[in-house]
């Protein structure tokens, strides 16, 4: 790990003023859900940050996460943060391939043993290691090898964090998440399909500025700054939910008026992410603003959580068939029960002995 702070130099080289940097820090502080008054502290910490070696492993994935993180239109400080890390291996982005690339990875590992950061996107197949390999090395083996000398692992995207789409029922490849395999290293999960790019870079920035310990995570290993509130709680359509105004279809009056999408299957109430405030494509919009219900992609098993277009309150099971069975079964049991009750009644009537006044006066 090179110990020289890099960011101030990079800024100077790119002609970025300190005002620009302060502006970035104010925005980053807002992203990290820290009080705005802490922005100067964030700036100081970032300036002093050193340059860690990063190894990026891509397993069973669609490259959407890499696409998202590299999609910035103009040179920004996020790029610089990204540049401030030494990306020693990323087989999608690097020019070298095959054995040359693997040699680079091994060299980086050896040089920075115990200190490098591993970023993983994609899930790992366990059913057959041959389902996904890089340069003849299975994903499982590469992850185990690389993780051994890592300071920490960042699982980027829902596949790496929770198994994602490859893990969806019936999971033909036996796909699992990083945390299912590696248990002795700190793992930060940054789920999303893909995660919001700024969330990815902000987690990296926070790691650079304040170290691993500063990143508070929830039970699912997600940084609390970005995954502690539901989309529903921060949704600009929330007032419509509270007023009981819902779009019933994608082209009705309610949909045109921008009413709540709960009845169209929105998973906002159970999905933790900052989509509603940070938004996508440089703060332009997010799915609900574009008129589509949230799919819940930052939660485990989002693919199998009862259908994208079924409201959360609606049963996801096979209740209709069971309901019919219940009607038939109930009726049959009822007839049987009634028949038993009748026979009890008639046998009681048969056994009934009339009592005369004489009987009552008899002394027993």
């Amino acid at each position, binding site marked *: 790990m090179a110990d020289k702070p890099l960011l101030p130099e990079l800024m*100077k080289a790119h002609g*970025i*003023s*300190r*005002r*620009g940097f*302060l*502006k*970035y820090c*104010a*925005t980053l*502080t*807002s*992203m990290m*859900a820290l*009080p*705005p*008054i802490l*922005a*100067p502290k964030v700036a100081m910490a970032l300036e002093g940050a050193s340059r860690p070696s990063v190894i990026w492993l891509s397993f069973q994935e669609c490259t959407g996460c890499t696409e998202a993180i590299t999609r910035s*239109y*103009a040179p*920004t*400080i996020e790029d610089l943060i990204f540049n401030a890390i030494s990306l020693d291996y990323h087989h999608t982005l690097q020019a070298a391939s095959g054995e040359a690339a693997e040699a680079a990875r091994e060299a980086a590992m050896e040089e920075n043993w115990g200190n490098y950061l591993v970023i993983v996107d994609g899930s790992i197949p366990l059913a057959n290691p041959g389902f996904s390999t890089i340069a003849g090395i299975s994903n499982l083996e590469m992850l185990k090898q690389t993780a051994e000398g890592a300071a920490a692992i960042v699982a980027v995207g829902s596949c790496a964090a929770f198994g994602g789409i490859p893990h969806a029922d019936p999971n033909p490849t036996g796909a699992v998440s990083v945390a299912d395999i590696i248990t002795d290293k700190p793992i930060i999960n940054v789920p999303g399909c893909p995660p919001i790019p700024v969330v990815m870079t902000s987690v990296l920035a926070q790691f650079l500025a304040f170290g691993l310990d500063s990143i508070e995570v929830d039970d699912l290993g997600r940084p609390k700054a970005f995954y502690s509130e539901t989309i529903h709680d*921060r*949704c*600009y*359509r*929330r*007032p419509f939910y509270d007023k009981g105004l819902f779009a019933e279809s994608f082209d009705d009056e309610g949909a*045109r*008026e*921008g009413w709540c999408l709960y009845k169209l299957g929105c998973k906002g109430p159970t999905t933790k992410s900052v989509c*509603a*405030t*940070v938004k996508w*494509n*440089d*703060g*332009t919009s997010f799915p609900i603003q574009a008129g589509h219900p949230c799919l819940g992609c930052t939660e485990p098993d989002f693919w199998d959580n009862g259908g994208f277009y079924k409201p959360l309150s609606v049963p996801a099971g096979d209740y209709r068939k069971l309901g019919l069975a219940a009607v038939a079964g109930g009726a049959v049991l009822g007839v049987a029960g009634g028949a038993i009750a009748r026979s009890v009644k008639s046998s009681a009537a048969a056994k009934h002995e009339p009592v005369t006044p004489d009987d009552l006066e008899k002394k027993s």
Partner: protein
Amino acid sequence: MAELRSHISTGNARPVLHEIRAALEALLATGTETIIDLGAIPFAAGDERLLDSVLGPGEVVATIRALGETRVQETGIAGVWRVDHFDEDGETLSRFVEITFMPEILRTQRADAEQALDTLAARLARPDAPTH
């Protein structure tokens, strides 16, 4: 879409306005500066409109060009500033209300001034530097 959305209000504008009032009192009493992050609360177009209409336009409007524009405006309520950061494409990065006598971002930064001193010295030292 913009017209359709513009009437949406979350009802958060009034609480923010009261927070601004308390912050302005604190600024005058003890000099404590306050920054309110408008991105940290649900704040829709309707709220923005109410905020703007109560605060009104002020005397100072400044544009900073650093990694995209930053608009710094004093509102009609002196001591209450709006600081809005945009990126190179004009998309909003973050929005703040600052209750202060002078927003920090307007001030010349020491590091920039230090670098500027070097730049000026270099320009003067150049053999072709203009003398009159």
